Every structure is written in C-alpha cells, then in structure tokens.
C-alpha cells in the first residue's frame, strides 16, 4: 500500500461504516486516479472528504434518507455527550483565568485551592478522555469512561464542598481567607 493510499484511507475512515464497506475501494480508485503523481491528498480533498463524512453521518442520524442507523446515533451521542458536559467547564476556566491574572501563571496554579474551587476538575479530564476515545472509535473504552464520568458527576453533586462565591466574592473577602 502506498503512502498516498494510506493517507486517503485515513480520510475515508471518517465516513459511516456501511458507506465505507460499500464505497471505500471504489472511492479510493477515483482518488488515486485523480491524484496523478501527488504523494499527499490535495487541500480541497482534505476538506471535502471529512465534510462528506459528516454529511453522510448526519443523513443517517437524522434519517433524511428514511432510515435510522442506531449504531451511528450512538456514535454521535458518545461524542456530543462529553462535549456538552465539557461546555460546563467554562465557568471553571473563568475562575482559573482570574487566579492566573491575579497571582501570575505559576503563582496562580500553585495557590489555587483546587479541591474547593475545582472539585470537578478530575471529572472533566475523564470526559475529555471519553471525547478523544469516541473520536478514535474506541467505543467500549469510551463507554467505560462515560460511566466513570457520570458516577463522578453524581458523586460530586453529593459530596463536593459547597462554595457560595466566585472570584468577585473572593476578591471582597467573603469566602476564602488567605
């Protein structure tokens, strides 16, 4: 297998499984014929193939062709779920930015009371790992991570220390005395 073929296969691997099984060899033939002497996919192909893969996934998920492929639904949910949960970490990032702004980068990171200010940081890391595993199609490991991440979120909701003020309150000395 040539280097170019391997690169094309990597891009084609982004498409839905049923489409790959039916069309991958054929598409590879078209791409290789069109490539000539190139050793890399063209810039347009590098954009076109992932975009086509996304459209094919969406068509299957939203049943615009009349049928739902449940496996693809799970694949999309397993990716979007962690992304949605990670979006909740933005408040924490604002906190982190405040500490770094006030104390400097090293000082901020070393003086942050991590457990009280970021009790769920470890859970975010788990969900980030789940998102990466989903993209890499390691679905079983991603599923285990998702269960651990969910258990972590539930556990934190019950046991995490309760903080009544954010950076503004801290600045006014309402919450945490240094």
């Amino acid at each position, binding site marked *: 297998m040539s280097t170019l073929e391997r690169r094309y296969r990597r891009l084609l691997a982004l498409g839905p499984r049923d489409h790959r099984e039916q069309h991958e060899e054929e598409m590879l033939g078209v791409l290789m014929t069109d490539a000539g002497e190139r050793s890399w996919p063209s810039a347009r192909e590098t954009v076109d*193939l992932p975009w086509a893969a996304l459209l094919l996934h969406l068509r299957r998920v939203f049943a615009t*062709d009349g049928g739902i492929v449940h496996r693809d639904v799970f694949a999309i949910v397993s990716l979007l779920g962690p992304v949605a949960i990670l979006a909740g970490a933005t408040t924490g990032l604002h906190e982190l930015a405040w500490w770094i702004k006030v104390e400097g980068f090293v000082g901020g990171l070393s003086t942050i009371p991590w457990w009280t200010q970021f009790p769920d940081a470890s859970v975010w890391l788990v969900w980030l790992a789940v998102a990466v595993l989903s993209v890499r199609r390691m679905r079983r490991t991603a599923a285990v991570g998702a269960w651990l991440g969910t258990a972590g979120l539930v556990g934190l909701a019950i046991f995490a220390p309760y903080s009544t003020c954010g950076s503004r309150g801290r600045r006014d000395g309402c919450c945490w005395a240094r």
Partner: protein
Amino acid sequence: MIDGALREPTFLILTALAARPQHGYGILRDVEEISDGRVRLRAGTLYTALDRMGADGWVAVDREEVVDGRLRRYYRLTDLGAARLEAEVRRLRAHTRAAEQRLRARPQGGTI
C-alpha cells in the same frame, strides 16, 4: 418526489448519467466537461450525492468491474431519476423563456 430546484451538482450528475452508465471517475470528468470546466466535483461530494440519489431511487448500480486491481462501479439513471431530471429541465426551460421574454421587452439602450 421533491419538487424544489435541484442543486447544481445533483443536476450535473444526473445529466452525466442520462445518456449512459458511468463509473465515479467518469462522472467527475463528464461533469467538468458539461459545465465547461466551471464545476469540478471532488470524490467526497460525488459519493455523498450518489448516496442520496441512490436512497431516493434516482440512480442505481449498473455493473462492477476491476481495472488495474481497482474496483469500478458503474451507475445508471433509473426511470425515477430520468423523470426528476426531465422535470428540472422543464422548470429551467420555463424560467429561461420568461427571462428571454423580459429581456426582449426591455427598453432599447437601457437606463442609467
């Protein structure tokens, strides 16, 4: 059947298949020729369109062959696809006729 206008790539792919079955690479080249070099489809766009048109019953696999160790699959226009293309041609012709009539009715010399 959807009655809205066809997107240009869809129209050109159906046109490329109207006279005879063609394989993927042949469709890409033919679309380029039909559009006088203006539309150059990529493989991803072509196979996304074929996937949709196959699901709609407009195109079907005609035959397969292996050339230089590579699979070639030929696609043909179905009767449903031909009817859809004819409907689009009628729609475009009506619009073209209307445009021509309005242009003829335009005052000579134009306006500033």
